[in-house]
């Protein structure tokens, strides 16, 4: 009898990425009264993508603030608040709009601790959806992982699953440095199993640590954000053909956990990187360069290969858009080419 009851498994909770971020922010707002959220439509509208649903009702005008449509202005205000001792979460409705405010993110937030010789920290989080959505065309589909990942002084995280989203937003809010969290609109509604530890109010995912989502022996496939799911799909397909892929979810773009990638490449001898952003100067390009500089290079049996978005502004027409983002078939093709199959 005792043995049987030990085998009973409690069903895991299914939580969407949206709700995971909501939970994470809610818990941190509750934990520390210096934390507040500002951005367009975050309060009374419940969030343009409903990520901040219910927070204004719970915390009120002083903690959840609707701003006018003035990214440069409110990002600057948020940075000032962080310098003065508050812990703002500054939401960009999409990161495309952050380009209006990028001077504040880089010159006022990222560089300040360095420029002040260690005197002035800027504990701020910039978050919002990043990258391609569906049919939103050129000005609303850009991936900013490479742009923000380029800058010393910034931390940049890119969650894929609900667990990633909750753990990373909490770590970002508690971090005393400027953190950019690149979410994904198409992932907001996707449910994931939420492990027991993720339900704790102190559940944190360390910034700067990648996760091996799937163990494998033949090839290392590294990705971040939504494409991680595509990589796992490709891995499932290839597994039937006897190819076992090791899929790594970067979770953090900067500081990048290259050690996890290196250890994996030293085991599998093959590398494919997958990202939604453009190829030139992208996340994959950085991974390849670092692999060449480190111990893993000598373990490569083939050149590393990148799978990326197409090198064009995002077209609107569906057939063109579908071919401008990395698809599962492109990942499978790249893996097979690398393995010379």
């Amino acid at each position, binding site marked *: 009898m005792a043995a049987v009851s030990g085998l009973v498994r409690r069903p895991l909770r299914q939580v969407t990425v949206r709700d995971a971020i909501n939970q994470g922010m809610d818990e941190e707002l509750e934990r520390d009264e210096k934390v507040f959220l500002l951005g367009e439509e975050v309060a009374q509208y419940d969030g343009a993508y409903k990520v901040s649903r219910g927070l204004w009702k719970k915390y009120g005008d002083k903690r959840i603030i609707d701003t006018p449509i*003035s990214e440069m202005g409110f990002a600057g205000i948020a940075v000032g608040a962080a310098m003065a001792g508050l812990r703002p979460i500054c939401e960009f409705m999409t990161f495309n709009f952050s380009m209006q405010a990028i001077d504040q993110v880089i010159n006022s937030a990222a560089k300040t601790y360095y420029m002040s010789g260690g005197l002035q920290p800027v504990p701020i989080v910039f978050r919002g959806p990043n990258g391609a959505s569906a049919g939103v065309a050129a000005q609303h589909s850009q991936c900013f992982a490479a742009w923000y990942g380029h800058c010393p002084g910034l931390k940049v995280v890119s969650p894929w699953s609900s667990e990633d989203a909750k753990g990373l937003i909490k770590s970002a809010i508690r971090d005393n440095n400027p953190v950019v969290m690149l979410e994904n609109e198409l992932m907001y509604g996707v449910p994931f199993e939420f492990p027991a530890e993720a339900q704790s109010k102190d559940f944190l995912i360390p910034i700067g640590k990648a996760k091996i989502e799937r163990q494998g022996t033949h090839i290392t496939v590294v990705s971040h954000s939504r494409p991680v799911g595509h990589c796992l799909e490709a891995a499932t397909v290839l597994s039937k053909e006897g190819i076992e892929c090791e899929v790594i979810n970067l979770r953090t773009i900067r500081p990048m956990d290259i050690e996890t990638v290196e250890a994996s490449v030293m085991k599998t001898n093959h590398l494919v990187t997958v990202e939604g952003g453009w190829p030139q100067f992208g996340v994959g390009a950085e991974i390849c360069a670092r692999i060449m500089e480190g111990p893993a290079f000598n373990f490569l049996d083939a050149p590393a290969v990148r799978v990326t978005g*197409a090198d064009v502004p995002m077209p609107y027409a569906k057939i063109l858009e579908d071919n401008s983002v990395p698809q599962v078939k492109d990942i499978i093709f790249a893996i097979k080419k690398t393995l010379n199959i």
Partner: protein
Amino acid sequence: MTPSRRPAVKAWRLRGHLKETCGHPDGVSPAFGSCRNPHCLRSMRKMLAAVSRVLSGAAQKPANRVLVASRNFANDATFEIKKCDLHRLEEGPPVTTVLTREDGLKYYRMMQTVRRMELKADQLYKQKIIRGFCHLCDGQEACCVGLEAGINPTDHLITAYRAHGFTFTRGLSVREILAELTGRKGGCAKGKGGSMHMYAKNFYGGNGIVGAQGQIFEAYNMAALWKLPCIFICENNRYGMGTSVERAAASTDYFKRGDFIPGLRVDGMDILCVREATRFAAAYCRSGKGPILMELQTYRYHGHSMSDPGVSYRTREEIQEVRSKSDPIMLLKDRMVNSNLASVEELKEIDVEVRKEIEDAAQFATADPEPPLEELGYHIYSSDPPFEVRGANQWIKFKSVS
């Protein structure tokens, strides 16, 4: 008597009857017996007669034409329009204006076309034939049509994402616009731009990134400093997405916010007001005095975009009130009919023609093929020799042609 004359005579007699029994104000019978008075048997009989005529193949149109030709319309009429609020201006646009019958019919047709086109876009979006973002301007027709009436085709215009109306008034066809919305090769941007990225001669889009209040003030400064002939226009529809202007602006007197730049506040639901204000503003600029600001007070019936129901931050009563009291198309129609510039039937005929035009355009927009995959890389650079564009991996290549 030729067969086509008979219905005309009958209709005249019926009109007299309707004035007596149905209480229609001007004795004008609604088309095809659409009198709402359930007790109007004559009206029902006319409707049945009309239906049977249609079914028997006899043309209804010639009868109407005979009616129209036999009526004397006024060539033009003078109307009073609302005085504009002024900022740093001694005098403003005139408070009366002359509308010719020809112009009236043109404006009516244009506004009705924009209205129907936007409603068709709503429909296509719900059918998932249009994807992504779709920001509709129904309710704001007097702004784009009135503006165009006050400027020249050689003037330059740029706007934000609520751009379909301007795209039409700047000269593109409904076909090209709808086909762009559906992402087909017959679209004005070959399907590559979508709703927010439509361009035409002297029309610079269609832009998706807005707000940038700081940039506006920078632009005001340079325009005034260098006396640039620029009309800055604010279509104030009371809400920025889900946030009312009171919650977003320290001063909602947008026409004054150019500070050293003179400004006008205009009734944006009255196309004649918009036209006169635009003529005034354009003349001001062309005379070398520098920039000027125009705030058009208007209203959008739809939410911010198709993903916004538009009723969480405003009441249905408010929307309904604007529709019933200030609809721009209704206002023009009432003016024209009451001043004998046009008849109700004539305007209804235009409605029918517009509906057909939109239907045809929607057919085209749904049937036209998507742009070819080979052209994915085209139009990255202008005036450059062809080069290769990388696809999702290093083995997928596209050609890029200017």
